[in-house]
């Protein structure tokens, strides 16, 4: 069996150890960032019926709802006919903690608030949810990031923080 042992060059062995070490460091980094610092990817929200979403439930009357001072819920409905987010203009006071809920009434869309880590897919049948605290005054465009038809490039809204 001794000649069945794998031949590995000493330099290659060192290269492998360094490579594995680098990958382990990466894995530890994303783990700390995700599970200790709370920089997390989205997890499932509620299931939604896309066929009735525009006529019943919270998405039939989307927009900003104040839960308590400085604490908001924002419902956004994405539609491809025409290509729009409902609503596409939102104003919140600086320092607001906003829980954003987005779903689609038709095809797949994307949702990304520029210059933040808020970035997720918007699918019919599913609710995408993430909470973000707006600490700085300014205009934050939120854009559709998934191809949703010939008007896709015009699909965006703006959150104004004042």
């Amino acid at each position, binding site marked *: 069996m001794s000649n*069945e042992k794998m031949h590995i060059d000493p330099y*290659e062995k060192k290269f492998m150890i360094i490579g594995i070490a680098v990958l382990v460091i990466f894995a530890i980094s994303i783990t700390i960032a995700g599970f200790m610092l709370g920089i997390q990817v*989205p997890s*499932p*929200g509620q*299931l939604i019926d896309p066929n009735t979403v525009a006529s019943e439930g919270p998405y039939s009357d989307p927009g900003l709802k104040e839960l308590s001072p400085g604490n908001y819920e924002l419902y956004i409905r994405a539609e491809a006919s025409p290509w729009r987010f409902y609503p596409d203009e939102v104003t919140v006071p600086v320092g607001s903690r906003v829980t954003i809920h987005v779903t689609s009434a038709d095809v797949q869309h994307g949702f990304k608030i520029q210059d933040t880590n808020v970035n997720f*897919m918007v699918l019919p049948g*599913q609710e995408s949810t993430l909470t973000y605290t707006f600490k700085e005054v300014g205009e934050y465009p939120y854009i559709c990031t998934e*191809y949703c038809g010939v008007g896709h490039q015009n699909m965006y809204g703006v959150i104004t923080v004042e």
Partner: protein
Amino acid sequence: MFKTEKKLVGWHIVLALTGLGLGSLFGPLQAWEHAGWNLYPSLQPYIASYYQGLTLHGILNALVFTTFFITGFLSYITATSLDRPLATPKLSWAGFFVMVAGLVLAAVPLLLNLASILYTMYPPMMAPWYFYVGMVLVVVGSWMSGWSIMITFAKWRKDNPGKTAPFQAFAATITMVLWQVCTLGIAAEMLMLVLPWAFSQQLGDGSIGMDVQLARTLFWFTGHPLVYFWLLPAYLSWYGMMPKQADGKLFSDTMARFAFWLFLLLSTPIGFHHQYVDPGVPAGWKYLHAILTYAVFFPSLLTAFNVAASLEIGGRKRGGKGLLGWIKNLPWNDPSYTAQNLAMIIFIFGGAGGVINASYNVNLVIHNTAWVPGHFHLTVGTAATFSFMGIMYWLVPHLTGKAIQRKVALWQAWLWAGGMLIFSRGLHWIGLLGAPRRTMLGVAIENYGTGEWQVASLMTGVGGTILLISGLLFFYVIIHGAFFSKEEVSVEIPVAEPLHDEVVPAWLNNWKPWLIAVFALIIVAYAPMIINLVTDGAAFSPGFDVWG
């Protein structure tokens, strides 16, 4: 020798290059649109929109060109490497004709702007049912050619008990087994979700809807290993052919085989790293796939070391001295070698970007931005496509017996490398600034972009122009070489010898444990989530046309 196989690979290349030629024409149109020069309105009524062009570009380049080239190339190499004809040539030809039939069926709605749904075909955007039937036939045809390769390999093993198969045939067969395993995802998506839905919506009473999250999950089951289906034939050449072209030897045959086994094992159970921002998949599953994605980076690291060491042997044999001085002694006057070596160097950046994409929460910064096409033009668009161009620079003269114009081909190679670095740098940059992918950026910039976006998008326009010139030169070289060249030439298939007379350990020749491990890992990584998505009672969607 190998008359049938030569004809087979020749016809595959004709179809592959037809796809690449037509698909690539749309590339510069997209790049110019980003830079503010939109030519699409002048293409009406033949091409209806930017997005129809983008769909043709993605499907013809990333699916049609690659699948035809890889299927033909691997069929031929399996036969020549084992030094025996394909065991079932009729099956290979049948596979080819099924692929062609599928291509025609899918091409009609694509060209008529009835299926402008991009190469991901995300439901509930709905193309005509025969578009999906066409795509299914392309995959089934490639399976049939793959079965022919596997049968040939198995017969060789039966006739040569206890022997280690030649590396090229081994690598070709692993690639086709990987393709067979990973396409089970898209086969399930098409046969169980998309076709019943399209038939019902278009021909029936519309009672069958679409579970969108489940369809995405099945698509990406295939979507990531698809990347390795593109890459492994290039690796076959980098390990098994290029060392010979550089007068070197394969540094470690054993580790090369080990890397291929790891790709087979690890490239499928990692698809959720394309779905980090999907609403319907819990973070824990995404995290598991993130860690497994890091694991599949390991065999690429092995490849970097082994291939570089193999080429160094060649560079030194050709008189190269010093720590890095051997690099200039590599055969830079050979366009086949040069294209592939440049592809390899550019792939270092592609691989590094890939680790960033795979890095779970870091992915939030770039997901669905222009960074992503910037990335995959370095991988499929260069590491794979550019290597295939390099391979064709010896393969086409080998088949036709006529020389190509090597000087023009060398210009083509350097222009591709330079153009791609500029083009891809522009897309990476604008993506980091927040520009979405698959979007008419020329319009989007005015909606929500900044001045800096315009500089970056100008880079994509310049790079795209250089790539167009390089692409035209490539087709000139191949067409001139194949049909108009008078210079007779006899080109042999490069076959790299291993450096050492290695005894390959038995566990690297034994398929059964590896295949059991492949399916076990897939079940662990996918089965619970897929069962959950099937049974979660999510509402179904009808079909939509949002591009007509």
